[in-house]
Structures are given as structure tokens and as C-alpha cells.
């Protein structure tokens, strides 16, 4: 009896209030603005390299996430993630994930502990909402070149060696998506990055982008694009990837949220021809 009264009242409201549709539209646009400002906001400057991130939802708002957090020890903590689903529900959980990351980032020792902490904070909520988030978290130390990372169900980023000008495989680290199981202890791996090395983090909206013939963009095409444009700065590499995806999909509407994060190491070259250097004939 109560349920039918509730439904009837709801319908009455909508019929009596056509303004509600306009209000909802306005609120969705406001929500989009909030998400765009939080997501594509100010990127911290780092010594010894460049970082950049970009996110484009498939609908007005979406569930992809990326973030940077400069740590007191001089390292920069980076994260990329993908909430299950699309649109408003995914966006709400994205904000939850962002909050969990930012509140934990300064107090955890590394990426693995960060993911453990995020999973601990979000597991019950995600289970209740029948959702999950895939996350990849990494610390980069500009002083030592160490790139340390941990994974919760996400694609491993692409690592392009500046010296060899080719893709190198990152040591595999696997972990369960956040919200999958409680009390997860994540593992870490580490590589040493040198001048002109590039790390490209991404969500599957890029590699699963489809053209009119139903073909997917695929990882191989993304790798070719990155190798082709590897000499560009991070912002231009991002533009090149987006252009490549747009050219591929042509007029087909974007199917999934697209997000990418770039780290490019640029260590200043030492000039040995200083005024104090001895001249050797």
C-alpha cells in the first residue's frame, strides 16, 4: 500500500513540475563542472621530469579517476583508476575514491600500502553498492629515479625507454580490484627510470574505443602512437594520442571514459665545458 502511494506521489510530482527536468539538467551540468575541475585541475610541477593527466568522460560525467600527490619526502604519488560503470553513479564513487586516496596518501609508506588503505576504507561501501574500482598507484622519486608501483586490477602502464626508443615490459604486479575482497595486502615492484623514459598510464576507454566497423583501437595501436610521438613533451603526447583515437573512431560517439597520465623523465645534461674545467690539448 505504502509503495504504491510513494510511486503515485513521485509521478504526480513529475507531471505537476516540468521544471524538475530542467533542474536536473542544471544539476548534472554543475556536477560535471565539479568533476572536471577536480579531475583536470592543477598539476604539480616536478623536478627532473614532467607529469600530465587528462580525463574525458563518455557521458557528461564519468567514473575514471587520476590524481597526483606531492609527498613531503620529495616523491610524487600518482594514481589512475576506473570505477565500474558509467555516468552519475560511477562519478559519485569516483569522488569517494579520490577522498580515500588523498586522505591516505601522506601517511602510507608506498603505493602498495596506499592501495591496502583505500581498499580498507572503501570495501564495505563498494560491497553495499555492488561496485568496485580498479586502481594503479605509483611513486616516482626524482632524486633516485626509482619508479615504484602497485596494482589493484588495473592495466599496467606502458613503459617507453628513452634510450632504446622502444617499449620495455614493466615487471608484472597483480592485485585484486578495490572492493573485491576485504583486507587485501598489495605487492610492489620497482624500476629505475632514466632521462627521456616515459610511463603512460591509461584506462580501457582508449584501447576499447570503437570505429564504425566495430573494430577496437587496441593496445598495439596505442603503443605505435606513443613510440611515434615519444620525443614530444607530455602535453603534446597526450594531444597526439587523443588525435589518434579521434581519427580512428571517426564520428562514432565515445563509448567509455578515456583517461591518461604521463610521466616523462628529463634529467638536465651536465655541461662539462665550464670556465673552471682544465683545457686539455
Amino acid at each position, binding site marked *: 500500500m505504502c509503495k504504491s502511494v510513494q510511486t503515485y506521489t513521485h509521478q504526480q510530482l513529475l507531471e505537476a513540475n516540468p521544471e524538475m527536468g530542467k533542474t536536473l539538467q542544471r544539476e548534472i551540468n554543475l556536477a560535471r563542472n565539479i568533476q572536471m575541475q577536480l579531475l583536470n585541475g592543477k598539476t604539480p610541477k616536478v623536478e627532473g621530469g614532467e607529469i600530465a593527466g587528462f580525463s574525458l568522460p563518455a557521458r557528461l560525467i564519468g567514473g575514471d579517476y587520476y590524481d597526483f600527490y606531492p609527498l613531503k619526502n620529495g616523491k610524487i604519488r600518482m594514481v589512475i583508476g576506473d570505477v*565500474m560503470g558509467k555516468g552519475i553513479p560511477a562519478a559519485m564513487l569516483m569522488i569517494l575514491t579520490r577522498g580515500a586516496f588523498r586522505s591516505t596518501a601522506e601517511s602510507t609508506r608506498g603505493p602498495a600500502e596506499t592501495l591496502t588503505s583505500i581498499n580498507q576504507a572503501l570495501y564495505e561501501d563498494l560491497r553495499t553498492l*555492488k*561496485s*568496485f574500482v*580498479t586502481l594503479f598507484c605509483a611513486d616516482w622519486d626524482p632524486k633516485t629515479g626509482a619508479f615504484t608501483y602497485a596494482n589493484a586490477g588495473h592495466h599496467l602502464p606502458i613503459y617507453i625507454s628513452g634510450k632504446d626508443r622502444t617499449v620495455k615490459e614493466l615487471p608484472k604486479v597483480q592485485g585484486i580490484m578495490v572492493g*573485491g*575482497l576485504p583486507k587485501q595486502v598489495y605487492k610492489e615492484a620497482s624500476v629505475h627510470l632514466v632521462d627521456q623514459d616515459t610511463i603512460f598510464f591509461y584506462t580501457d576507454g582508449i584501447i576499447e574505443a570503437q570505429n564504425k566497423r566495430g573494430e577496437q583501437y587496441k593496445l598495439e595501436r596505442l603503443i605505435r602512437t606513443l613510440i611515434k610521438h615519444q620525443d614530444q613533451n607530455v602535453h603534446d603526447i597526450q594531444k597526439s594520442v587523443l588525435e589518434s583515437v579521434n581519427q580512428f573512431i571517426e564520428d562514432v560517439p565515445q563509448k567509455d571514459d578515456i583517461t591518461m597520465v604521463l610521466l616523462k623523465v628529463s634529467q638536465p645534461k651536465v655541461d662539462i665545458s665550464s670556465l673552471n674545467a682544465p683545457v686539455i690539448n
Partner: protein
Amino acid sequence: MSLKIKKKVKEKAVILHIDGILDISTTHLLELYLKELDDNVETLVFDFTNLEFIDSTGIGSIMNAIYLSQEKHFKLKLQGINDLTNQFFEMVGLYQILEEIQGSEMDV
């Protein structure tokens, strides 16, 4: 973009052949089958032999089935998984979750 689910019942086992695309636009169909599952089902099999594509929402549906198997005490089996889908399931940790929740054996 469509999903076709063919249901076969063999004694106390239900086999759902999940053909086509399991994504945000089609998962509600699988959820319906999960809702209508008999309480006396002992085994539920998802056959992915003719699955063309699955996204995160599809994974979410499988997760729902895993947790339902815990609640209703039936065994969930996944079979007919191609290489690409297998990689996806491995990446997100789906097999580990299945094993942890029910100690399932999986036919590939």
C-alpha cells in the same frame, strides 16, 4: 549491441549460455536470471563460449553471482572463456575472488 542468454536446466544445475555483449546496456538481463534462480539450485554455470565483449559492468554482474552463490550456497562455475576474456578476469582478480568466496573449481 545485444545479449542473448540461453538457459538449460540439468537436474539441480542451471547453465546460462551468455552470448553476445555483456555491458552496461545488457547486464540487467543477466541480473533477471539471477533474481529468478531457484533456492534449490546446487550449481550455476556461466558459459562464455559465444561472449563477444564484456566490460566492467559485466564483471560487476559476475561479482553479484559470486556473492549470491555464497548467500544461497550454490557452486558457481565459469567456462568457455577465451584468451582475451581470461586476461581481463585475471587482471581484475576475478578468479581469486571466486576461489576465496567459495573455493570454486573452474572449467576452462
